[in-house]
């Protein structure tokens, strides 16, 4: 399993080199969004309206961070469970989103969209929220401030740790990893 440092915005050429199980250290700008923000984004797309952020080549991190303590960029910020964003993800991938970070497996429609639109799904460690927060150097709300923890934030990250769970080649670490170790 390779260890790769990836810089955003992501290019397909970078993603082609990734395989499931690879450790990725992500650097650059990423955006946050979870249930409520995704619903609003997709409502806009369905009504042919502009999104508040350009998702082309971007990374969406499924997180609702804890409040920042004084002197910190952000509070604890681990991933939330991704399947809840499954109904919304294919539309964003179609618009050019290149990676999603979350935890837990994705549904068939998202896996298909990942392949079709040449994107990746990265898994961060759920519950490693304080550790992950230390890789986030800056955070600012760029949309939906009224949603509080669920607002869309622009994060500047350095060596944000994650694992490739679904690669551009159609592999799924959840499926293959479990099959490898299953005895029951």
């Amino acid at each position, binding site marked *: *399993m390779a260890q790769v440092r990836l810089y955003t915005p992501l290019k397909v050429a970078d993603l082609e080199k990734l395989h499931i*199980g690879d*450790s990725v250290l992500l650097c650059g700008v990423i955006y946050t969004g979870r249930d*409520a923000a995704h619903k609003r984004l997709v409502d806009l797309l369905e009504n042919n309206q502009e999104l508040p952020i350009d998702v082309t080549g971007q990374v969406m991190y499924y*997180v*609702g*961070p*804890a*409040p*920042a*303590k004084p002197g*910190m960029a952000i*509070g*604890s*910020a*681990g991933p*939330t*469970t991704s*399947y809840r964003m499954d109904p919304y993800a294919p539309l964003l991938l179609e618009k050019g989103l290149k990676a999603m970070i979350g*935890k*837990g*497996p994705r549904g068939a429609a998202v896996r298909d969209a990942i392949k079709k639109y040449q994107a990746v799904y990265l*898994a961060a*460690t*759920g*519950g*490693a*929220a*304080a*550790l*992950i*927060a*230390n890789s986030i150097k800056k955070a600012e709300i760029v949309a939906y401030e009224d*949603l*509080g*923890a*669920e607002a869309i934030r622009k994060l500047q990250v350095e060596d944000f*740790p994650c*694992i490739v*769970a679904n690669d551009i080649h159609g592999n799924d*670490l*959840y499926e*293959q*990893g*479990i*099959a*490898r*170790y*299953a*005895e*029951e």
Partner: protein
Amino acid sequence: MREVQASRITSAVKELCMRANYILPEDMKAAIAAYRNKEVSESGKSIFTQIVENMEIAERDHVPICQDTGVAVFFVELGQDVHVVGGGYEDAFNEGVRQGYREGYLRKSMVTDPVLDRKNTQDNTPAEIYTRVVPGDKIKITFVPKGGGSENMSEIRMMKPADGMAGVKDFVVERVRKSGGNPCNPIVVGVGIGGTFEMCAMLAKKAILRPVDVRHPDPRYKAVEQELLTRINKLGLGPMGMGGRVTAMAVNIEIHPCHIASMPVAVNIQCHANRRAKAEI
């Protein structure tokens, strides 16, 4: 009759909210350390390393272990000789949650209406407070901040008595299998068997309050706990469900008498950030 000021409950609750979210109980630290050595998959080993490092950062810097600082759930043993004065009993808990979540920089995760409005209440109230009146003049509070990701993987089933222990075991194992990588494995599995519908769910929740190194006092249920843990760890889910040998660190069962027609079984899933803290007034 011992008089206790409501403000004492508030300050105890405030402290509990912060402590529980920053520091894992000793039994959980020991379990994570022990199971870390049992994991063989590459992704699993790296996840364990992160879990341990994260736990150390949270405790040292007084920041939440997980950003999901949960629903504030309290189990209280209220001495029957206690008289709470100077404010409402439940108000005192909610005020403690309000203060603890604000001053502790904990995330507020409660919405007003479950379906229609879903507006954040902004202070993580209301708390869920389960009080049992017991002999004595003390107030013993156990606080559990319950995260949404693992809670969502829980299930209750009204089984038939004829399903027997084999049925119970299969239900628990299948519940964990279906949860896959969603609930932040390695998990702790709380199982409630018996009671009525609501009692059964409560038993499963109480089961996760029990330290993971304490087995059921009835040797027959102790054996079931051990067998279920072995079976669950053969599912291959591993840490975060990406493959491995450590899917769960404990299965805790709680039982209760039930109706002649019934055999309800509830499974409450708890993530590896199995947070709980106690206080006594």
